[in-house]
């Protein structure tokens, strides 16, 4: 049987000020995987995600979501940006931020109503933040802000989730809570792509992995390719990770 690909990336090259950040990336991500993108700082992990989302324009190459360009498929894709990418002193509440997840399907001009509010409240409950719904967002801790971003993506009710370091700066409890939600989503047939930093937890959390360092080093099932060879190739130093069998 032919595998269905959620995302296909062809010959993608991205450069900032003539310096290549991503070089000739080919990537085919099968539907229904929970995939980690790993690589050192400056490897282009965030850039790859932003290029898939059409936020950054590549100088060459193409990205297809279920075989079509992103512009036609944005309703299929949910995005969790890095927590630090926004100003949390913005005058708004937690519920309001989560409601933003519904704006895409609403389209231009139309305002969110009861249906959207209900969806947002459900998402808040799922991430365990319902009691914080009226909280001003600057009053939330880092972990809570991360949960709010996750809830906002959940509201989008998409097929593909792209997450930029969702575990950054969160405590162990929140990390467990988030990974449980991700695993639940995968069970529901969603495709999840997560920029991840903690190599120790890759085999435990993910079933698919992409090694990235400007070029694509390897991509495939964790059990096949998550090994010292690929880690060394990606990080440039001799890497030893004890993979639990």
């Amino acid at each position, binding site marked *: 049987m032919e595998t269905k690909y959620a995302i296909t990336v062809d010959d993608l090259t991205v450069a900032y*000020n003539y310096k290549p950040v991503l070089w000739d990336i080919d990537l085919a991500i099968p539907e229904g995987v929970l995939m980690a993108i790993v690589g050192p700082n400056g490897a282009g992990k965030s850039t790859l995600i932003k290029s898939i989302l059409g*936020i950054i324009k590549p100088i060459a190459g193409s990205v297809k979501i279920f075989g079509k360009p992103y512009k036609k498929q*944005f309703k299929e*894709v949910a995005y969790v940006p890095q927590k630090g*990418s926004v*100003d949390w002193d913005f*005058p708004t509440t937690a519920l309001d931020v989560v409601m*933003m997840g519904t704006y895409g399907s*609403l389209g231009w001009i139309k305002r969110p109503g009861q249906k959207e509010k209900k969806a947002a409240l459900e998402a808040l409950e799922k991430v365990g933040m319902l009691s914080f719904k009226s909280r001003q967002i600057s009053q939330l801790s880092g972990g809570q802000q991360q949960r709010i971003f996750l809830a906002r993506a959940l509201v*989008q009710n998409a097929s593909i989730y792209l997450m930029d370091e969702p575990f950054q700066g969160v405590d162990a409890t929140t990390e467990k809570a988030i990974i449980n939600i991700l695993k639940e989503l995968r069970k529901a047939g969603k495709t999840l792509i997560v920029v991840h930093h903690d190599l120790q937890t890759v085999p435990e959390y993910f079933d698919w992995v992409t090694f990235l360092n400007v070029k694509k080093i390897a991509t495939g099932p964790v059990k096949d390719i998550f090994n010292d060879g690929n880690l060394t190739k990606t990080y440039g130093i001799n890497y030893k990770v004890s993979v639990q069998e």
Partner: protein
Amino acid sequence: MEITEYFNLLFTDYTLQTITLGTAVLGALCGMLGSFAVLRKQSLLGDAISHAALPGIALAFLITGSKDSNTLLIGALISGLIGTFWIRGIVKKTHLKSDTALGLILSLFFGFGMLLLTFIQKMPNANQAGLDKYLFGQAATLVSSDVWTMCIIAGLSLLILLVFWKEFKLLLFDADYTKSLGFNVKFLDVLITFFIVISIVVGLQTVGVVLMSAMLLAPAAAARQWTNSLSVMVLLAAIFGAFSGVLGTAISASSNNLSTGPVIVLIAAVFVLFSFIFSPKRGLLFREIRYQSNRKDLELHKTLAFMYHIVKTHDNINHPHAIKILNNFHGFTRKSLQKLESRELITVTKTMWSLTEKGFSTAANLYNQQEENE
């Protein structure tokens, strides 16, 4: 003219009514759009745009020979827009940062504008007097057609804000995410910037190119202190802006026609100062008060928690204990015991204390909360 006399005249004098309405509408317009500039961290953009408008005013006069304010403002609009696009171009095409680009364009355009003004003043033509009013503004020169222009632009801006409220809010908070949801960020960006430029341009006659940016920023900065809701912030900024405009014009008009711009900006600055100090949630005063009372509460909670640990080992929570056993615990004083008693958390009888039901449950919850936070 006294300022009270000014406000009395307001009911009868058509000219004063025109000027007052104009400055109120202008203040509201600038406050409203200024909120967006502040939240987008584009505060300095307004400064650059207003300075960049000056050569446009001078050139419009040189070309048409007319001093009609609408003609001059079209010139201002064009050169303001050119300045804005150059700033964007510089940031995009070179390695220069936006503050450098803003500073460059601001001084370049302003310098050119001043040069043209000096040139115009040397011209053998009696018609040129009054162009320098655009430097610091003169509300007294407003006529009803100017006020109409302001009202139309304010109405249009309000309409645009209401129609695209959801999109603008999203863009202000998280531009990348806005793009990922399929919205045309460039369109929104150009739209909001265009209206900011227009509102600056219509304010030039009243406030002047030098201080116009304060008219955008001050009401918004003051409003931010009082609320955590974007809609309330925009509304408050509009109100603060309108009051600054009206009061500033009244003061400047009633004291020998001072330049209006500086007076309006000073009034707006008073709003800002007052808000920074006295706003209940973010103000300096209440922050200090909250800090002090938190510290006191913390002391009490520590004592209460200590008592709770003693009481927990007994079956009867009301069982009295000697005050003495608190002696080796730091932080308790007679006063703190009195305070706990006055809050009905404990009862004190001579040398003994005991927790009340309320005290016990308060202490227990205190403990739970701490565990949750950890």
